[in-house]
């Protein structure tokens, strides 16, 4: 958590292997990802990491199903297996009726659900979400927040970036506060509490 320009998204991009540190190292799930080649980083990302962006970043010329299937197809998962997993996720996220629609026809909340389904299709060990409710209205934001909470409760490790202290208090079990690229706080808390406890 932190204000704009504090380095939240940069941190997330470093964890995802989308960016490289100018100094220091990045170790995720025991693997030094700053040492990986571009191809190695891409393979690491598609097998171990799922990323959800603030503006969804869906591909406009692919259907919902094709967007969700894409990481599995890139990873070489068999067609039947990938389809089964995509169907399972679309059903779980309650967007199966939009299977063959294009993203432009969906609401913001629905688009973010598709993005979450896409991020989960390869069963990542870590799900990264960069301001996942930032582009949604309050109601859709609530829905996505609950969805992420459910995923976390079911065992999915989740790193969520937000500038909203209320959201952090409501959904996070641990909050790291950033300011100007520096860690200014790291606290575990009980979800739904009002003030993160300082460590």
């Amino acid at each position, binding site marked *: 958590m932190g204000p704009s320009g504090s380095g939240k*998204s940069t941190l997330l*991009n470093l964890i*995802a292997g*989308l*960016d490289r540190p100018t100094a220091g190292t990045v170790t995720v799930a025991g693997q030094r990802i700053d040492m990986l080649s*571009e*191809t190695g980083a*891409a*393979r690491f*990302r*598609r*097998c171990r990491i799922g*990323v959800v*962006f*603030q*503006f969804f*970043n*869906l*591909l*406009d*010329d*692919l*259907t919902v199903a*094709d967007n969700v*299937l*894409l*990481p599995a*197809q*890139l*990873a070489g998962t068999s*067609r039947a297996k990938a389809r089964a997993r995509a169907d399972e996720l679309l059903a779980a996220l309650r967007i199966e009726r939009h299977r063959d629609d*294009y993203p*432009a026809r969906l609401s913001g909340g629905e688009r973010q659900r598709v993005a979450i389904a*896409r991020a989960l299709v*390869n069963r990542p060990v870590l799900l990264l979400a960069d301001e996942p409710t930032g582009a949604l209205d309050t109601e859709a934001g609530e829905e996505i927040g609950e969805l992420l909470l459910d995923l976390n409760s079911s065992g999915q490790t989740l790193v969520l970036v937000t500038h909203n202290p209320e959201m952090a208090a409501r959904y996070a079990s641990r909050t790291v506060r950033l300011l100007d690229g520096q860690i200014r706080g790291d606290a575990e808390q009980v979800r739904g509490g009002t003030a993160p406890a300082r460590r």
Partner: protein
Amino acid sequence: MTPGPVVRAVLGGLAHRRAQTAVVGLVLVVSTGTSVLALGLLADSSAPFDHAFAAQHGAQLTITIDASMATPAELAATARLPGVIAAAGPFAEVTIGLEHGVEALGPVTLAGRPAPGGPVDDVVLQSGHWAAKPGQVVLSAGELPPGVTDGTQITVTGVPRRLVLTVVGVADSVTGSAGGWVDPAEIASLRAPGALATAQMLYRFRSAGSTAAVRADTAAISAALPAGAVTASRSYLAVRAQSASGIAPIVPFLAAFGVIGLIMSALTVANVVSGAVVAGYRRIGILKGIGFTPGQVAAAYTGLAAMPAAAGCLGGVVLGNLLAVPLLARTARAYGVGSLGVPAWANLGVAAAMCCLTGIAAVVPAARAGRLTAAQALAAGRAPRTGRGYAAHRLLGTLPLPRPVTIGLAAPFTRPARTAGTLAAVLLGATAVTLATGLSTVLSWVVDGLTHAAAEPVQVAVPPASAGAAQRVIAAALRAQPGTLHYVAEADLRLSVTGLAQQVPVTVFRGDAAWTGYDLISGRWYSRPGQADVPSGFLTATGTRVGDTVTVTAGGKPVPVRIVGQVFDTGSAGLTIITGWQTLASADPGLAPDQYDVGLRPGTSAAAYAQALSTKLGPGYGVGAKDQNSRLAIVLGLIGFLTLLLAVVAGLGVFNTVVLQTRERAHDLAVFRAVGMTPPQTIAMVLCTAAATGLAAGVIALPAGVALLRCLVPVMAADAGTGLPASFLNVYQGWELAALALAGAVIAAAGALAPASLAARSPAVTALRAE
């Protein structure tokens, strides 16, 4: 309109879009260069002979006189005939055999001239000096055998005593009045005992612009001399036609390549320039946002395309001229006209056409951009228009291919207009490749058909002094020599044919000669006495057809000869007869072979065979192996080079399209990378986008190229004054067609490789952050 901000916007844009600027410049360099080269070659293809003829005061008529029948005074009087504006001669002449080492150089006509200059046929000395005393010879550049240079000593054959001449110079006569020149005092010693004493007279006339006019001039000269004094005549029109027959066939090919080059350039330039403007929409929005008027925006974007285009045009003109220099220099050297260059009108015309084309290509989208509101331009520049290509994505997504491949294959459908422009440019490039491949094969066959180098690569000249014994020696040596497949004796005569003014070369074979490599256009090869085959030129000149009978005069007797076949041969402008020994032997009992033609077993080296045979036969027997035709090498080189240039233009068009696509789709590419697409997968996806367009272009280009070849080759043959065997149009093998169908894909993939690699390497996070 204030120029300051516009100029600053142009300069800023050029600095910001360096790749785009470089592509516009490069496309213009290559396409302008190609067009200048093609147009320059076209323009100069007919000029050298006329330039040289004017410069050398070429002889419009060369006549050979029986010196015993006309006195010098009678000959001098012909110079004063009405219509004659200049005359030179008489120059005594003699036709002799020459040898260089063990190699016989064939019969050469030498003229005795005291000096190279004169009012007619001003011979140009290319090296050395003129033959000033007996024992010296100046050889014609056109007759110069390989290995013979100034200082070389050559032996005269067929004369009673051994005579050696030293080559002291190389000269050129545009009308080919002689194969060499010696001091006039030398001629008598070179003439074989009992041989007819002949001399040549050279004329220029007031009116000699047509065959009829030259014929009338010849008749006037003949009438002024005693009957029978004129034994032969040669018109400069025949020399010019023969000279043009070497160049004329490549003119249609140059024209076709020039037209293809211009259309391709137009398409590529339009695609590149309009693409550059479209890619700049976001910047246009910003410019309008800060107060640029529509006119300023249009001017800025026209300037953005015009500046690199103008530089490219200039570079292209320089490139075209530089490329033309070595190609034209050879022609210029051959005609002794100093230097030939691309005409100024060709340079100016191509540069002006290219600038206009670029201007039109830039102004239309720039004006459209100028009319957009700032908000519209910003929206249009942020992302490509969506809604296109959905069906293609859906359909291709069902194919059992890797996902990056199917996404790449569907991408061209999102920008149909740009794809169509790229497809058309690649189509033309692939058409040029298909045409060039077929043309190279046809030309190789044509040269093989004309030189017979494949069928009879080795010739053995029969020494004239001991013909009977020599024939037996040669035949025995050929039978014994490993590698001999066939051999046949050949006599080369010049005989009169009823209805033709001049004598016609007649090739007479003793034995089966069907293997000697004459390709049949129609009819069949002669099989009985009294039958002959003739080239198209003979049929045209005599107005005959296959099945007709002509009368030749051999040994002073008329011999009827039935034409049974039309063969492919342009030697002597196609005015020759090929027949068997029995046809003429009874009329001319003295008929004797001049040479033996030898066919070799597959895998036998002609050079090694000729060397071994020469060693076996010893000195006095000229053994020669036909080498590669240098004119063919030049034409094949030209075809290859022009094809390469056209393929480069097409490749640059693809390069530009892919650069635009990867820029427009930078966000999508970043998303692909974010969800795990590896750099090789990204490259494969981008390459498939280009290759799909290229493959489609290649598949369309294949029948287009084949059809163009089938149209072009008969036109080229007609310009060379010959028909063509039907087999010469079936040039493509199955595997070649399959490979050529991929030409478009290869061109496109080559053009797309660099931007695809760049797209795969560019950091995804930058594009995602821009969101």
